């Protein structure tokens, strides 16, 4: 251990002093006046624009060094510039979730005496992918480098890439099968991995020997170091121009300006008060190969959220009442939770002005210890933390959107988040070599609806606002599977006045491999993990996977017979059944014995929730949806829309019949509905008997064990003693 009493830690003292000043004044680092901004606002803005340009330029350059289609094609990378204390001043576009996780990483090193050992010198490179230090999940590997000027540490530059392979128990980056930290893959824990602007050779060797596809990780490391050096030199050139004292003052004012701007935007766009929402996630692993019996095999997660917007503009998010962490890979650390908050704010509110850590400082997260949001055991695995993180921040998006609707900024209201499932793979490539990869076309799923229009089809994910599915040919070069179909999934957007965006399904033929492991993750089973708004329905989840082993597709092709190109729209049968071979149907994470050439595999992504009452849907839009495959003719009935064949054979709405049908449906609703009080009286009897599936009973018991507030609110709502019912009377 370091003998801290005999060592001088100027950087750590500075960090503590900065935090004390924030506590004392309420302003970042005690900056109560934006003097430089007042003196010369044009210069102030221009300098921030230069920093942002340096970030964007460095990221674009780095993407061309990377070998990973995730970084090159999809843009799974972000870079940023930080103060000496580790607060973000400026950032690029990309996976902005990591701007604040890198901040945590830098602060962790400062707090842990890195000034003395291993030391912080000009040209050093520090890397990390440990979520308890500061990232979201193992594949999110970050590199930071200090900026020295005139012999002083004047800041940091940092870069993150999402690695497509992390060397875990299952191939790919999001290691679905990891139930503890020790099976998640290659960890780099705030390690000095290079000096004099060069990565250490022994570090590179360790990567090369512990990953299934080291070319991705190693070249991404080089890309990140190049981007850091590029940004560092840009900052140094700027400091040469404006002077180091001016720089230090300026960088702090940028952050304080960002904090004030966030508060002002909240006051401008929202309505103060308390907002609530919830979502759920179904984890189904019973009987699946590889899962150890460390915890419940099937687990229903409840994720309640309460958001308070104060009249000062501060946003507080509270996760009280959610489930404990578990022996699965979906736990999240406070760093990841911070990141989720940051990326959501950048999409919904920070579309102008200075975007930096100041926005995060205008918010507060309450993450109850022991829950999946803040595990009290650092052995917890976080390799697929997006599974719970995305649905949770989807609730945040809907709560923010409710505030936008209340305030009148309907064009900003967005039902939001999509938890899109991932495919990870590894084994023998089509070139006969070892390989591993995460397929990232999921970065373009369907979005939730807006309050004024339909959601985006095949064009959204929460974690990367620049959604891009990449080029099909590039993906085919990277894996031993050929596309035999990619199709819109009809009805995959939630129904509503404005429907959620639709997603797509891909179907592949395995090619030139005798051993391909396919694993999917981050898709909820048995429950919706998304929601609708203001009367819109949630989007259906994609919980079932289909494959055909030993298919006769080549024989059928040779005979000119029809092939299968998509799973189809029959919920009980798949179009793949046209093929001979062993039909496979798996619910939840797809983990089976390896596949080989000739097998067929299909995977669907999720759409987003709907907005508004379905009976207000524009009939003409629905006719267009049916004509173009976004909706099945059967699903048009949900909206009370009657279609008929037009003169050119295209579906067209029968407006009079639609009006009659909708009047009937309204009357049917009123007749079918019961007063909530009546329903509650019936439900109460069921609750008293705990007449629920075991997973539902366990969910209530776990939430009540961890949260007195949840237990009290449940008991008050139903007029029962919740703990007596679900915990056997233990108070």
């Amino acid at each position, binding site marked *: 251990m370091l003998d801290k009493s005999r060592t001088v830690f100027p950087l750590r003292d500075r960090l503590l002093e900065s935090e004390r000043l924030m506590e004392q004044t309420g302003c970042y680092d005690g900056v109560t006046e934006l003097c430089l901004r007042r003196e010369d606002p044009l210069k102030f803005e221009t300098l921030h624009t230069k920093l942002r340009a340096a970030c964007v330029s460095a990221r674009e350059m780095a993407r061309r060094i990377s070998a990973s289609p995730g970084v090159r094609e999809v843009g799974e990378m972000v870079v940023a510039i930080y103060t000496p204390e580790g607060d973000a001043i400026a950032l690029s576009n990309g996976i902005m979730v990591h701007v604040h996780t890198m901040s945590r990483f830098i602060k962790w090193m400062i707090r842990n005496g890195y000034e003395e050992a291993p030391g912080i010198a000009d040209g050093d490179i520090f890397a990390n992918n440990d979520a308890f230090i500061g990232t979201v999940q193992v594949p999110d590997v970050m590199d930071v480098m200090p900026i020295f000027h005139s012999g002083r540490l004047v800041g940091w530059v940092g870069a993150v890439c999402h690695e497509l392979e992390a060397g875990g128990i299952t191939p790919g980056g999001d290691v679905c099968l990891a139930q503890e930290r020790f099976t998640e893959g290659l960890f780099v824990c705030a390690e000095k991995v290079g000096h004099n602007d060069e990565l250490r050779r022994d570090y590179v060797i360790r990567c090369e020997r512990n990953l299934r596809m080291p070319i991705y990780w190693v070249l991404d490391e080089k890309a990140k170091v190049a981007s850091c050096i590029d940004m560092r030199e840009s900052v140094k050139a700027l400091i040469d121009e404006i002077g180091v004292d001016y720089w230090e003052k300026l960088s702090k004012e940028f952050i304080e300006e960002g904090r004030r701007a966030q508060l002002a935007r909240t006051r401008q766009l929202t309505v103060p008060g308390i907002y609530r929402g919830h979502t759920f996630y179904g984890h189904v692993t019973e009987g699946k190969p590889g899962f150890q019996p460390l915890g419940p095999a099937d687990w229903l997660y409840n994720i309640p959220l309460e958001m308070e917007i104060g*009249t000062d503009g501060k946003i507080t998010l509270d996760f009280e009442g959610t489930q404990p962490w578990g022996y699965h890979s979906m736990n999240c650390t406070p760093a990841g939770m911070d990141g989720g908050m940051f990326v959501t704010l950048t999409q919904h509110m920070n579309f102008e002005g200075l975007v930096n850590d100041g926005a995060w400082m205008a918010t507060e997260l309450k993450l109850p210890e022991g829950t999946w949001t803040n595990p009290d055991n650092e052995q917890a695995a976080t390799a697929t933390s997006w599974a719970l993180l995305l649905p949770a921040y989807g609730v945040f998006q809907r709560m923010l959107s409710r505030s936008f609707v209340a*305030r009148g900024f309907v064009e900003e209201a967005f039902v939001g988040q999509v938890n899109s499932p991932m495919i990870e793979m590894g084994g023998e490539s089509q070139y006969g070599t070892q390989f591993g990869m995460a397929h990232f076309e999921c970065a373009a799923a369907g979005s939730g609806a807006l309050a004024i229009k339909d959601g985006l089809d095949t064009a959204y994910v929460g974690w990367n606002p620049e959604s891009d599915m990449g080029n099909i040919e590039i993906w085919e070069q990277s894996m031993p599977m050929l596309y035999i179909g990619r199709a819109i999934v009809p009805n995959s957007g939630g129904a509503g006045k404005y429907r959620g965006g639709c997603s797509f399904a891909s179907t592949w033929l395995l090619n030139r491999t005798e051993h391909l492991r396919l694993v999917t993750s981050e898709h909820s089973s048995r429950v919706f993990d998304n929601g609708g708004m203001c009367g819109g329905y949630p989007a259906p989840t994609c919980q079932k996977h289909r494959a055909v082993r030993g298919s006769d597709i080549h024989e059928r092709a040779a005979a000119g017979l029809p092939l299968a190109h998509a799973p189809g729209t029959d919920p009980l049968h798949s179009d793949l059944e046209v093929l001979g071979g062993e039909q496979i149907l798996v619910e939840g994470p797809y983990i089976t014995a390896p596949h080989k050439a000739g097998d067929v595999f299909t995977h669907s992504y999720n759409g987003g929730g709907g907005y508004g009452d379905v009976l207000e849907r524009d009939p003409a839009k629905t006719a267009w949806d049916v004509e173009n495959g976004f909706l*099945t003719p059967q*699903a048009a009935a949900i909206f009370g829309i009657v279609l008929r064949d037009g003169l050119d054979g295209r579906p067209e709405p029968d407006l009079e019949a639609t009006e009659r049908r909708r009047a009937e449906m309204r009357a049917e609703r009123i007749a079918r509905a*019961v007063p909530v009080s009546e329903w509650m009286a019936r439900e109460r009897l069921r609750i008293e008997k705990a007449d629920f599936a075991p997973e539902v009973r366990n969910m209530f018991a776990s939430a009540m064990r961890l949260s007195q507030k949840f237990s009290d609110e449940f008991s008050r709502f139903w007029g029962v003693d919740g703990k007596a019912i679900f915990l056997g009377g233990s108070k």
Partner: protein
Amino acid sequence: MTTYSKEVIADLVAGRLPWPHTRRIMSAYKDDDRFFKYVEVLQDRVAWDHRILLPVGDHLFITDGADGRVTRCECGHSFGDYRSNWKLSASIIVRDSEEALREIYPNSDLPDPAWMEIREFICPECGTMHEVEAAAPGYPVVHDFEPDLEGFYRDWLDRPLEQA
């Protein structure tokens, strides 16, 4: 200062503003006079004369009038005091069987009704569906929004409300 006519706001709210114009509004600085124009547009839309204090849904408002501050449907139906959860005074359709869920999801994977149900909260007078909850059976009904009405009008709009 950015500002738009009431007609533009009305078209925006109704979803009939041409997309290029909507896109420009999304990209521009926000109009600080939006709220009262928005309320005027909504007030024109409804048939009753209670004053809209705050929209809380697509067809749901907190209004002020002879019956006090209540949550009110666009059809005029009152769900009672705005501080209580309007859903508890609504009507409900619960979809907790495969058959009932299949009506909404005819061609998709369904949730397991033992794990999740859909609750549709409906105005008992006009049948408008104001909110849909997807929840585990037994989960309490969510009180979506408790606005700080006084603070909003006093501190953010600079037009304090008269005492209720």
